[in-house]
């Protein structure tokens, strides 16, 4: 059988209702009788999983409501209720669940802790510390020359990070430590091709000359006269700027052995000032020429590659061991371990196969190679597998996805379905996407019908939709973003019914997101990205200060911050005056401390001993009245979300503590929060324009989508570490032939002969093509997010990036020509036939009507945002109330204040036990246990048995004999028989009561019910000599509470209250005065 025979591949182009389809596939199976527990479904995000479960559940319930037959209705309902327990979730959550259940089969600690994304680096370094230290001795000298010892260029990846990157790549591609050795060999061989034959190491000579010429330079700088005796221009801006830099660089060439290669390459700028050029240029040229044949350079590259791989190989092993030992695992482990179970554990395979029948994988195109292998394995164990995805939307290569590998697998699936109806977009948007991407994806080998989108019949009556093209001719990137912001403002003003929240602007980088948000903000339009860091938001500063003050009352900075930030403090607004002019500042601080705000924080400090840092935060927020304050501030919804995001930061902190097995404390959190940059909450709502990256836009849609950054260049490089694939796909071993190529380069700013060779290499050409394809998919994702309007942007009218996707002269636009009309004054000229369009978009030879405009950045608008009325509760009319605790435990009620007398009521016999040993509590429990039964119904033998059993169970055989129980029972029974002959005996009577809104639930040892009321009896095993005092001190309140409870429950009074001391053989009576 073909390995993929039971697999159906559903290719769902953008907007074609993938989730709907998935819901249908799964729900239908369940409706046909498949137990919900027999479905395993993985999604890309938690949110998607939640949605999927919700939708399936809703559908099942609907079907159940419509069902004629009651048993079918019930079984559908049951199925809906079982969904929470099913294996539907992200790949990680599902794998995590499986591993928890099969931990022991997998030989793992069952208390596995999953390492969160943020903790990975910390754990990796902890685990591999010794290895890195050991290898560091050999690697560091090379790393220093390579500029990767942490002291090189800011962007240069430190060698440890490279090691970690290689370890990660090895893990997600299932490469072993041994494989890595082979990777080193191949990497070096490939890189060696770029170099010249080794020659002489001339660095000594270079160095000598460098030092000599530096002296010349110094003289020149001092005197202004060069070697040649001529005056040189040492006051030019270029010279003044470059001179110190040159000195600093040359100063790094202390000894030949320590000199970074980057210094050899770039000790002077590539465009040096004339006097500098005169001194150094020929030397520089010689060095550049000799670099690629320098044997030391060869050796550094080779040794660096080999040692990094060798180190990575050891780290791979030790990291795995460390995690195993400490019961830790990360997301990759979860997948690897489940894969291993699926491959090797017979028990797991059988169990899984008998449990799961349907395996559904969503967003198949974004699975990593490891996940791919996992799904292949699991699919073999189930009856049926459905993989849903869209190869055109595979945009996570940077996270380790391999679209080519994926494509190869997908092509082998015999059963396929293509979803091509766009339920999302209007005609114009669909037409544009078809026109752009059919030719582009044809170059990826995709048939037009897998790209082409159609409107479904139902939507044919929708309006046509709009296209726009914005030219922003500014040369500066920031200015162009500002022009786009102005375009958004204009669009909002001219399009009725479009709210800011209907618009999304997509960018390539987070920096652009920030810049664009700021530009919109300047125009009075709030963007989804909040420019402020969490720690810099006012409410968070206030809360943090409060927490710091709770943590340490001597933290006078925190104290002052509370005063400075809190409008309710009496010194707020005056604090500088008071503090700075004070002769005795301590007294001022003392005075501030008296404010109720701070005394409440002080009292929180005493409560803090039983609280979590989160609770302290919440209490601080409450004491400082943050929520009401926030109501009077700007953007209250965002600020409230910030409060919650702060709790999120606390959760991150706990997670880190868990992973590092370290305790978590308030102080620890404050340190953590101080050292971490946390993003503040996003703005959201209908008045907020969405600004986000293309990647984040995946799966979302908006009425209007503005595509930014359509002019950016492709970014690719031959250097660095990358995963390569040899040969063709073998479904049995889909990851065979994968290896890691690592080509180091010591030149972070490029510009070396090595870079020149690298650029021409096949590796670079492949990388470029790969990047081009990535970009095509990313643009596809972006363009298909629009429902109604798509806006393209460009520097000119031919957006470079879109025309570099592989199809030449793909797209451009032009404004309608109308001679004489000036653009900037009259604004765009509308075509009277097609209102709103002012030009054409030319795509692959076809024309589309579009609104074409040229934009300028708008001037800052001064209009502040309006204040929308907000409301709050009127001051409570009631005085702040003090409530007693909800729970009333009879035994904790105080005895005092209850005027009562305690008198001996009966003597039952002699004292049975002498003293209270340490374990007397157990004796008491045993006696209670005996008296709590209806032992009177047993014969003497049975009674003794019972007593013996109880003594055994309470392990007090060495303290008392069974007789004690039997005797005390018997004589008490006798007493009852005489004193209360016909009374009903309720042993262990339960009483539940709510006196004054409090809750009391308890057990009365014995309640005798007579015709006119009750007698309450309590057994006390007190063995001491002052039973009266004991009762008076401890039990009066408790008994009074029981009496009231009985009266409330039955309407009949308790006539007498007796305390039975079995060990003393006495009964006392409490009588109220």
């Amino acid at each position, binding site marked *: 059988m073909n390995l993929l025979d039971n697999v159906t591949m559903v290719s769902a182009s953008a907007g074609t209702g993938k989730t709907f389809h998935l819901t249908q596939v799964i729900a239908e199976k369940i409706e046909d009788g498949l137990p919900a527990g027999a479905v395993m479904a993985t999604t890309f995000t938690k949110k998607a999983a939640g949605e999927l479960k919700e939708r399936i559940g809703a559908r099942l319930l609907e079907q159940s409501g419509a069902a004629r037959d009651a048993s079918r209705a019930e079984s559908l309902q049951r199925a809906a209720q079982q969904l929470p327990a099913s294996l539907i979730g992200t790949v990680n959550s599902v794998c995590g669940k499986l591993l928890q259940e099969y931990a022991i089969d997998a030989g793992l600690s069952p208390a596995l802790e999953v390492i969160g994304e943020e903790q990975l680096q910390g754990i990796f370094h902890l685990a591999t510390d010794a290895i890195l230290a050991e290898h560091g001795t050999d690697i560091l000298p090379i790393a220093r020359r390579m500029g990767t010892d942490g002291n090189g260029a800011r962007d240069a990846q430190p060698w440890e990070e490279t090691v970690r990157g290689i370890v990660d790549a090895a893990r997600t591609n299932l490469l072993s430590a041994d494989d890595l050795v082979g990777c080193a060999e191949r990497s070096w061989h490939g890189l060696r091709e770029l170099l010249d034959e080794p020659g002489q190491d001339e660095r000594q000579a270079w160095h000598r000359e460098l030092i000599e010429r530096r002296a010349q330079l110094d003289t020149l*700088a001092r005197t202004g006269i060069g070697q040649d005796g001529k005056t040189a221009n040492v006051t030019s801006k270029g010279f003044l700027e470059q001179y110190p830099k040159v000195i600093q660089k040359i100063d790094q060439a202390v000894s030949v052995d320590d000199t970074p290669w980057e210094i050899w390459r770039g000790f002077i700028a590539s465009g040096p000032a004339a006097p500098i050029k005169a001194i150094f240029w020929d030397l520089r040229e010689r060095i550049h020429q000799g670099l690629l044949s320098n044997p030391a350079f060869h050796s550094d590259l080779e040794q660096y590659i080999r040692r990094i791989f060798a180190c990575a190989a050891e780290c791979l092993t030790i990291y795995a061991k460390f995690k195993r030992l400490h019961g830790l695992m990360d997301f990759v482990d979860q997948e690897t371990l489940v894969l291993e179970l699926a491959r090797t554990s017979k028990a797991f395979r059988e169990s899984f196969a008998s449990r799961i029948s349907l395996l559904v994988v969503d967003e198949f195109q974004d699975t990593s190679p490891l996940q791919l292998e996992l799904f292949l394995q699991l699919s073999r164990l189930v009856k049926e597998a459905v993989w849903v995805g869209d190869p055109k939307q595979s945009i996570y290569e940077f996270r380790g996805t391999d679209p080519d590998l994926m494509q190869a697998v997908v092509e082998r699936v015999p059963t396929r379905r293509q979803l091509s109806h766009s339920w999302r977009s209007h005609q114009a948007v669909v037409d544009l996407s078809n026109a752009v991407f059919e030719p582009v994806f044809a170059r990826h080998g995709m048939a037009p019908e897998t790209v082409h989108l159609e409107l479904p019949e139902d939507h044919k009556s929708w309006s046509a939709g709009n296209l726009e093209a914005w030219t922003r001719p500014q040369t500066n990137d920031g200015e162009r973003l500002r022009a786009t912001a102005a375009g958004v403002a204009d669009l909002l003003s001219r399009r009725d019914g479009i709210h800011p929240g209907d618009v999304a602007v997509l960018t390539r980088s987070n920096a652009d997101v920030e810049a664009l948000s700021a530009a919109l903000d300047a125009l009075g339009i709030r963007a989804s990205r909040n420019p402020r860091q969490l720690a810099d938001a006012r409410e968070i500063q206030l809360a943090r200060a409060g927490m710091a003050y709770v943590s340490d009352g001597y933290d006078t900075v925190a104290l002052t911050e509370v005063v400075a930030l809190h409008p309710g403090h009496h010194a707020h607004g005056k604090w500088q005056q008071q503090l700075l002019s004070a002769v005795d500042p301590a007294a001022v601080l003392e005075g501030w401390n008296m404010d109720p705000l701070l005394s409440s924080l002080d009292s929180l400090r005493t409560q803090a001993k039983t609280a979590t840092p989160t609770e302290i935060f919440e209490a601080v927020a409450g004491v400082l009245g943050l929520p009401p304050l926030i109501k009077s501030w700007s953007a209250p919804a965002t600020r409230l979300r910030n409060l919650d995001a702060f709790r999120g930061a606390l959760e991150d902190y706990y997670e880190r503590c868990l992973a590092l097995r370290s305790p978590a404390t308030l102080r620890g959190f404050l340190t953590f929060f101080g050292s971490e940059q946390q993003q503040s909450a996003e703005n959201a709502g209908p008045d907020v324009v969405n600004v986000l990256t293309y990647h984040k836009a995946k799966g979302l849609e908006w009425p209007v989508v503005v595509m930014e950054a359509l002019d950016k260049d492709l970014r690719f490089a031959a250097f660095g570490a990358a995963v390569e694939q040899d040969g063709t796909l073998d479904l049995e071993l889909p990851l065979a032939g994968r290896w890691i190529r690592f080509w180091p380069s010591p030149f972070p700013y490029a510009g070396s002969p090595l870079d020149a060779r690298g650029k021409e290499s096949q590796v670079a050409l492949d990388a470029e093509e790969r990047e081009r394809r990535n970009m095509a998919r990313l643009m596809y994702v972006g363009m298909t997010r629009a429902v109604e309007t798509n806006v393209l942007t460009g520097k000119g009218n031919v957006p470079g990036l879109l025309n570099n996707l592989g199809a030449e002269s793909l797209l451009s636009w032009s404004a309608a020509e109308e001679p004489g009309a000036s653009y900037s004054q009259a604004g765009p000229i509308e075509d009277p036939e097609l209102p709103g369009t002012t030009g054409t978009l030319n795509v692959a030879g076809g024309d589309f009507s579009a609104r074409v405009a040229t934009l300028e950045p708008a001037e800052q608008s001064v209009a502040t945002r309006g204040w929308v009325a907000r409301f709050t509760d009127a001051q409570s009319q009631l005085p702040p109330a003090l409530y007693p605790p909800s729970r009333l435990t009879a035994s904790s009620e105080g005895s005092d204040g209850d005027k009562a007398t305690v008198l001996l009521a009966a003597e039952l016999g002699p004292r049975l036990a002498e003293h209270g040993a340490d374990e007397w509590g157990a004796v008491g429990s045993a006696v209670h246990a005996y008296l709590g039964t209806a032992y009177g119904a047993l014969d003497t033998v049975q009674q003794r048995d019972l007593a013996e059993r109880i003594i055994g169970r309470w392990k007090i055989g060495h303290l008392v004999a069974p007789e004690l129980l039997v005797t005390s029972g018997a004589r008490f029974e006798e007493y009852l028989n005489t004193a209360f002959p016909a009374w009903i005996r309720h042993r262990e009577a339960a009483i539940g009561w709510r006196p004054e809104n409090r*809750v009391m639930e308890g057990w009365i040892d014995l309640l005798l019910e007579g015709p006119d009321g009750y007698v309450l009896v309590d057994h006390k095993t007190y063995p001491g000599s002052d039973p009266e005092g004991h009762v008076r001190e401890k039990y009066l309140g408790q008994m009074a509470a029981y009496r009231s409870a009985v009266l409330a429950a039955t309407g009949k009074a308790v006539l007498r209250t007796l305390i039975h001391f079995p060990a003393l053989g006495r009964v006392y009576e409490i009588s109220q005065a």
Partner: protein
Amino acid sequence: MKIEFGWHLDRAPWAYNQPGLNHVRVGRKGLTTLLQTRLGITRPDTGHAERVNQYLGRLQSIDSPGAWFHDSFQVDSWSTAQELLAARDDAVSNGWDGTLPENDADVPTPSPLLRTLSAAERAPGYLAPSLADDTLELLEALDSPLPLGIEQLILHQAETSFPRIWQRIIAKLRRHGVRVSIAPPATVQPQLTVLTAETEWEAAEQAARWLASGDNASTAVVCSDRTSVLDQYLATHGLPRLGVGARSPWRAQNQLIPLFFELIWAPGDVRLLAEFLSLPGVPVRRRAARHLLHALQQAPGTGGEAWEKAIKEIAQDNTLGSELAAVLDRTFNTGLISGDTTNGAKLAETAVWLGGRLRARAAVDPAFQSASAQLQRILELVAPLQEVSRRELRRIVSTVVTPAADPLVAAEASPWLRLNQLHELCDDVDNVLWWGFRNGSIAHGRRWDAHDVETLARMGVDLPSPEDLAALSTQQTISAAGRCRHLVIVQVEQLLGERTEGNPLLETLVAAQPLPNAERAAESLSARLAKVSTTPAELTGPDGRWQFAGRRAQLVPVNRHLPVPPAPVHEVGPSPSLRPERLSFSQLSTLLGCSLAWVLAKKSKLSVADAASIPTDNQMLGTFAHKVVEVLHQHLDGETRAVPEEAEIRLTIDELMPHFASELLLPGQSRRRSAITATLVASISTFFSQLSRGGIVLQTMEQEFEKDLRLSAAGEDFSVAVKGSADAMGIDTEGRTVVVDLKWTNNAKYRREEIQQGTALQLALYQWALHPGDAPPDDPTAFYLLKQGAFASSHPHFGTQLPRAVEPAQLWMQAVAAAEFTIEEVLAGRITAKQPADDTRAEDAPDRAQMDADAGRHHVKPPCRFCDFGVLCGIKGDFS
């Protein structure tokens, strides 16, 4: 007695409207205990950790290299034992007696799990019984002739929906004459309202207002989640608080013991020690803790000078005493356990002090009782062990110190009925408010493999599936919903920084709603859900009228508050008290850089907590390196040598590290440690050898000086004592005084620029202070950049010379001018936050650097990066 029994009723209240005698509501735990009492089969409780320990012993006796659980057991015996014990208890609570089907060709062999459990049942060693065993035992005990005193058992669910073993127990109760009946099922469903708020605060505001806007005599509040935020809103309405806390392992008193057991191992972790010492409720006297924290803030290590001084101060403080000092020193310094394992008895001994403190505290403060008891339990478990590893100890600790749920404020007496889950509702009420709906369901039971289920079924043991249990809990919720007329569900979209997942129960509740007419039947479930859903924004009208789920209120408008940034310049009037009496270089530099920062630190004496300013990174390494050089110099000086041996440097580094940079000794730091050591060895050696090559004889390290600086400001002449110490002082071949300042910095460029621009005020100040006269001589000075192993100097003694733009004498003059200018400002009561002042400068105003340059004043940038007052001066302010 009348008993209402339902699988999930263990926490249900017995009475709301009616007090009740002999009428209880119980779940399986409650019913088990009740029957145990009546049957005389109660027994002492055994802690969970103890049982795990006992089971671990049994597993040990059946472990072998080939055992199925061997690998797991090896890496984590505690958790493995815990996991298997849970499986065992689950099987036993369903009636399993530990035996397996006879070997038989027709019967598939039991799984390794069941075989292991079965072997462990027979293995030697005592295992204390648990609730699971009790259930099994009940079956037998119910044959006893003892009368039970139970008249009626009312089941809250179909008898067949109970796990099989409970059906058998119910049958036996019947035989005891108990009347068994079924609670009448609810017939109507309540009117449903769903409020979805963004955050918990918004949700709480609405929920509290709703409770405040009606009488709650017939209301139940279901709290399926913590109520800390809701409680704050309730309190502002003058309503009683619900007081539900979350189970969390992170309570201060739960961290005490884990923290302590981290601290007793060598090498000490000063950051954790600081956390311990500043933990709320730590049983170290506050004053003593302050001494120690201060020492750590001086030098981040134990056992060094600062530490010893603190210990001495504690000993001399008669409210603290030498005994305490000795204990603290022993516990956190001298008595640390080295290695990765230790002996149990030794561990117990180490904790004697803490045990004593906790017991004493517990006697007066019940909050410490559990910590005290937990410590005893841990010590009991550990003491007998020959060898305990740090990892094992952690696991034992985490098994014993279990998450607790005490809320900050306990529940207060309230007119409403407080429940944890809706299915606990057994009384009829008008309204239910459901808080924390996302948690509104029950943790499901253990999932057994189909094969195991089959095997156990052959032994008459029927395991309920988690699916059955899930369905059961949903059914009970739906039927409980029928006991109220209005059900108000409150849910939030974002909690603890994450989007929340919807609770599928919601759809179920909506689906259970009656359909008033046929057309609605055609509506989709989501449309029906949308009809009953609302958001906080929809509840308030433009006139402030608020209406929600049948209750209404009139709200008042909120006044807008626009925060204003603090003024960059504060005019507080002439303030002679602000005159500096003494200045060090760093104070002078702060004063010139930002007078606000200087006044706040030096005059107002504002400071952050000691625990928050324990040096790390560059600050720590700088001090550490200094100290190493200083100590080395002392050695060399005694022996008139100039350059230390490499081994000597290494040795000194190793000696001083625990006192000055102890974090480098922690696990995970060896790479950093060796890199730093290598750098230091090379760098310090270069330092000494270059000095000697440059003809400099190093005379003293930390040369202290004090010299009066004559200044005139505000029309007055006065002098300020300039105090400090020069890092390294020596003499060159020409007899000139040489001063070198040692820096550990990432940014060598900045120091070089200072030399090149002639703005290295620190070096000029040293030369001024070490010489008589008003101006510093141009004697040799240098920065030594420890991390880079290079000097930066414009003098030829130190290798490559940097060109210099301004002479020290001139620099000094400019500095004096700047000081006089600034002090004049300050004395006039004009105190400036420099950065904000620069930022708010008008477009056309000259910038300050230029103004200083024009006036001949040395310009210093405000030290914002190292300043604790950024929020106070407003540069980190949020004025949006």
